């Protein structure tokens, strides 16, 4: 049945294929064909697959999301979303319905040696360069969303930062979806050469409609380079979202990810990273589920070589009938001695109907490593409630304050002011209970 439904997408493909970028590239055509046949054979991931066992995507199969030929700026509401989410203190690129939009992007003053261009342009202008990166941090076998993206991506972004360059401002990639039934499928490649230092913010927003974002971002962090990636997922509450981030870290490379999952009816993020010798990664996540939201975060940290360090903290607050899923895998290869890894997932359930599914997995093949993991699903700490009561705060306010604090701990990790304030606002919108006085924050 799955394949029968997937075949609707497959059947549509011949009409879509001629509109996709990179038509003349033999390697890309082959890659897309391989992806298409994988997707056609498997369909979207099913609950039978271990890494999708908590997330049912059949709703996506029942619809037929199709890419738009070219991004059209929906005059009124898009501007409102843009002004709300486009960060003033960052360079920014806007992708509308899966297509780069030059006139809304703001890249003035970007150093000339830095490349920020649409994926379509990059495939036309430097195809050999792209061949070195596309599907190199992940491949079509990962799961069929990746294959789907490989076959269907309409555009995206290519970012290249040369060695030793530290970008003074962050780069924001703003994904904006404007219509229901649309598919926004983009591929982004970020390359930071040795000792480069960049911060990239991926923001996902959309109009109040049922659309599908299906994006893949591949990140290559060079030797001793430092990449911080933020994901602000503020999709419409009717939308479906899949976003995969696949990272390759060279020796001594640092990668930090801050994953804020606020929106979407059904949202799944993959964050996978491969660590070379003495590299470090930090994965932070916050997911807030209300109503009937289903938010799934899947992380995989692959310690391949010795002396690498990973730190992971994911927190979830789930209210109403929302469901949060956390699957965190840490793999320590036989060769990866002296690995130092800590993984934590903490969940707060605010209603009896909310659900948290958490599955930390450690797979350790080396014998001299330090690995820890912890998981909690529960209520607020009674000691903290009493402490606040003893500071004149009534119990209900104390509970609300602590719920806010639980989430705000992750927001506080953002050191970019405008982004911090945006995330804070998202938290406050979702939990507007009495107990937190916005003016005092």
């Amino acid at each position, binding site marked *: 049945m799955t394949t029968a439904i997937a075949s609707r997408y497959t059947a549509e493909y011949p009409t879509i294929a001629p509109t996709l970028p990179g038509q003349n590239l033999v390697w890309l055509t082959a890659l897309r064909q391989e992806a298409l046949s994988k997707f056609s054979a498997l369909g979207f991931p099913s609950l039978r697959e271990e890494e999708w066992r908590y997330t049912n995507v059949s709703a996506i199969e029942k619809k037929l999301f199709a890419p738009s030929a070219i991004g059209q700026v929906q005059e009124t509401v898009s501007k409102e979303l843009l002004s709300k989410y486009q960060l003033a203190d960052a360079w920014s690129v806007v992708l509308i319905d899966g297509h780069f939009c030059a006139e809304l992007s703001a890249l003035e003053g970007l150093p000339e040696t830095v490349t920020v261009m649409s994926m379509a342009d990059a495939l036309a202008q430097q195809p050999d360069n792209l061949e070195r990166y596309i599907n190199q941090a992940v491949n079509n076998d990962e799961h069929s969303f990746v294959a789907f993206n490989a076959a269907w991506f309409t555009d995206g972004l290519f970012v290249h930062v040369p060695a030793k360059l530290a970008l003074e401002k962050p780069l924001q990639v703003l994904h904006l979806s404007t219509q229901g039934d649309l598919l926004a499928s983009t591929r982004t490649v970020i390359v930071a050469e040795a000792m480069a230092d960049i911060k990239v913010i991926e923001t996902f927003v959309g109009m109040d409609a049922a659309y599908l974002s299906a994006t893949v971002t591949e990140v290559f962090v060079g030797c001793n380079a430092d990449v911080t990636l933020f994901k602000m997922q503020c999709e419409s509450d009717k939308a479906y979202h899949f976003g995969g981030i696949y990272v390759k870290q060279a020796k001594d490379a640092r990668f930090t990810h801050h994953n804020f999952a606020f929106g979407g009816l059904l949202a799944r993020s993959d964050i996978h990273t491969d660590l070379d010798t003495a590299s470090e990664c930090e994965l932070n996540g916050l997911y807030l589920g209300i109503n009937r939201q289903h938010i799934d975060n899947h992380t995989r940290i692959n310690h391949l070589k010795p002396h690498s360090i990973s730190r992971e903290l994911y927190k979830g607050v789930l209210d109403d009938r929302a469901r949060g899923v956390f699957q965190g895998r840490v793999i320590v290869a036989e060769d990866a001695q002296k690995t130092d890894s800590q993984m934590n997932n903490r969940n707060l359930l605010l209603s009896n109907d909310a659900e948290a599914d958490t599955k930390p997995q450690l797979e350790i093949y080396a014998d001299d490593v330090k690995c820890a993991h912890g998981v909690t699903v529960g209520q607020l700490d009674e000691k903290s409630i009493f402490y606040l009561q003893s500071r004149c705060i009534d119990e209900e306010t104390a509970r609300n304050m*602590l719920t806010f604090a639980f989430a705000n701990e992750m927001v506080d990790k953002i050191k970019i002011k405008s982004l911090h304030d945006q995330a804070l606002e998202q938290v406050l919108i979702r939990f507007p209970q009495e107990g937190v006085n916005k003016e005092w924050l």
Partner: protein
Amino acid sequence: MLSIKNLTVNVNDKQILKGINLEIKPGEIHAIMGPNGSGKSTLSHILSGKAGYTVTGGSVTYQGKDLLEMAPEIRAREGVFLAFQYPVEIPGVSNIYLLKAALNSIRKHHSQPEVDAMDFLTLVKDKVRLLEMDEKFLYRAVNEGFSGGEKKRNEILQMAILEPKLCILDETDSGLDIDALKIVSEGVNSLRAADRSFVMVTHYQRLLDYIKPDFVHVLAHGQIVKSGGAELALELEEKGYSWVEDSKAAI
């Protein structure tokens, strides 16, 4: 200020306090000393309203009102302040936010308007200087990553800003080095006033070198077995708790 009469308290059906009597007048400093397990912490918890204790008899009257009837936050707003032995870390809430929330809760309780933002900042910065703290502490999350000494200092900072009437210091000296002990003691001494009383719960005498009590009570096996002036603490230090515990056995 505070009148404890024949107070008996159970924890999980086990009697921990076995008839405590204590009278504290405005402006007085009382030290409660005793060995581990004597019920010292239970006494400070019961005064501040922590859950998990069952009062089986007796009464506690604070400024003419039944203290045990009040919710913990009402006691705090009425002027009872507990400086915790182990202050709780609250990531995600800044120190200054908590101070403002607490102070405004008190003001609301007394039908006063919210504190003016500028006045508040001036007040807080004054007290921060008094306790020789870095202003940056105000903007850090409550107690998060603070050293033991910083946490205790932070408790006294809260006390200085909230201006309580009855201050209960629970093992405030534990975990403090000598410099931090001096600063904390000076902070406490600066708050001494004719209308403010202190209850210092402590295992060791050394805190009393810096904050001189008017009365010392020795708690053993859930009862006050000996009361006296500041000199009692010195005698205790010399002879050890077995001295009073033995004398209790003789009662």
